[in-house]
């Protein structure tokens, strides 16, 4: 019966919301600090952020200079 299905579905949704309501949380200030700290720690090893010198760039064709 569709009504029984609806009630079963609604029960599942309520159950799911209970799970989500009960999780442990941390403060946004701590979450933000951790994100910023991670970015800072790894900034130097982020090629797209700091750039890649030609000699280390596997995607850049290293053409020899031709002196005309």
């Amino acid at each position, binding site marked *: 019966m569709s009504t029984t299905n609806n009630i079963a579905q609604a029960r599942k949704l309520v159950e799911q919301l209970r799970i989500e309501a009960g999780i442990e949380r941390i403060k946004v200030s701590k979450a933000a600090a951790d994100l910023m700290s*991670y970015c800072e720690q790894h900034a130097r090893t982020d090629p797209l952020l700091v750039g890649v010198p030609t000699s280390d760039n596997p995607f850049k064709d290293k053409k020899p200079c031709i002196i005309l």
Partner: protein
Amino acid sequence: MEELRKEMENLKDQITAVRKTFQDSTLQEAAAGVTVVGRVQLKTRKTLRGHLAKIYAMHWGTDSTLCVSASQDGKLIVWDTITTNKVNAIPLKSSWVMTCAYAPSGNLVACGGLDNMCSIYNLKGKDGNVKVMRELAAHTGYLSCCRFLSDTEIITSSGDCTCVLWDIETGTQKMVFAGHQGDAMSLGVSPDFKFFISGACDFTAKLWDIREAECRQTFGGHESDINAIGFFPNGNAVITGSDDATCKLYDLRADQELLTYQDPSIMCGVTSLAPSKSGRLLLAGHDDFNVNIWDMLKAERVGVLAGHDNRVSCIGVSSDGMACCTGSWDSFLKIWN
């Protein structure tokens, strides 16, 4: 039924209220002293030519050199991005492909789409031919995304609103993740392989515990379908991209949205996204043929990748962070750094 509805509303209000109590600050405030990243100008280093129709998906291999792309020309192509050579060109049974994935081992690739199936191909077969190893069929809707956990397990998301964890060897469903109230469009696996996130047409993103088959958290806020989703590199935050033209950053431990990446000049939906290796940059592909680059902490646009002649449908940053690959409806893939 009425009681259940009231309880649902109460719980939703409860969650909203609890989240507020943990909002002792905002990422904006916390990052106030941080200088915006300087203008990011990436150049096209390689153009991968070969597909004859729109490219719908691409995925880097873990070696940061090979990648796989899927096009509605009915082919999966494995590329050597440095030489631009095609390592494999795999003809598909169904050309209506919407997603592809590269296994972390490099041994397998997978794809699927309107055929509602996820097909697994063995790249390292004995006789050198690439053949279908398994066809994972059970979804009752299109396959929107797939990601390998290993050579024996893969997770899929579908237009039937569910995500599934499959046992590749037996071809059976190990777990079904049901809960989304709209097509599941995209998924991302956490760096520790214990969780995955899914974005859907119900405008929400969900965090799932893979082994318990449980939805742990649900994030709302978007005003339209979520097309793209990914983890921040440390696994503690989730980034989503939506048809509402914005991207959002949600922190998993604070259980709430931290930032929205939007600009009045950006009116086209987000199709794909990828964070840079440190997480500081967010690259987002849009329907307007461009990729916008954001400073993830300051929510300021710091660059644009313009080079495609049609929608950017997929984007990925290699594991070593050296390059970004974009795939487009213009049938080309471009490698940028």
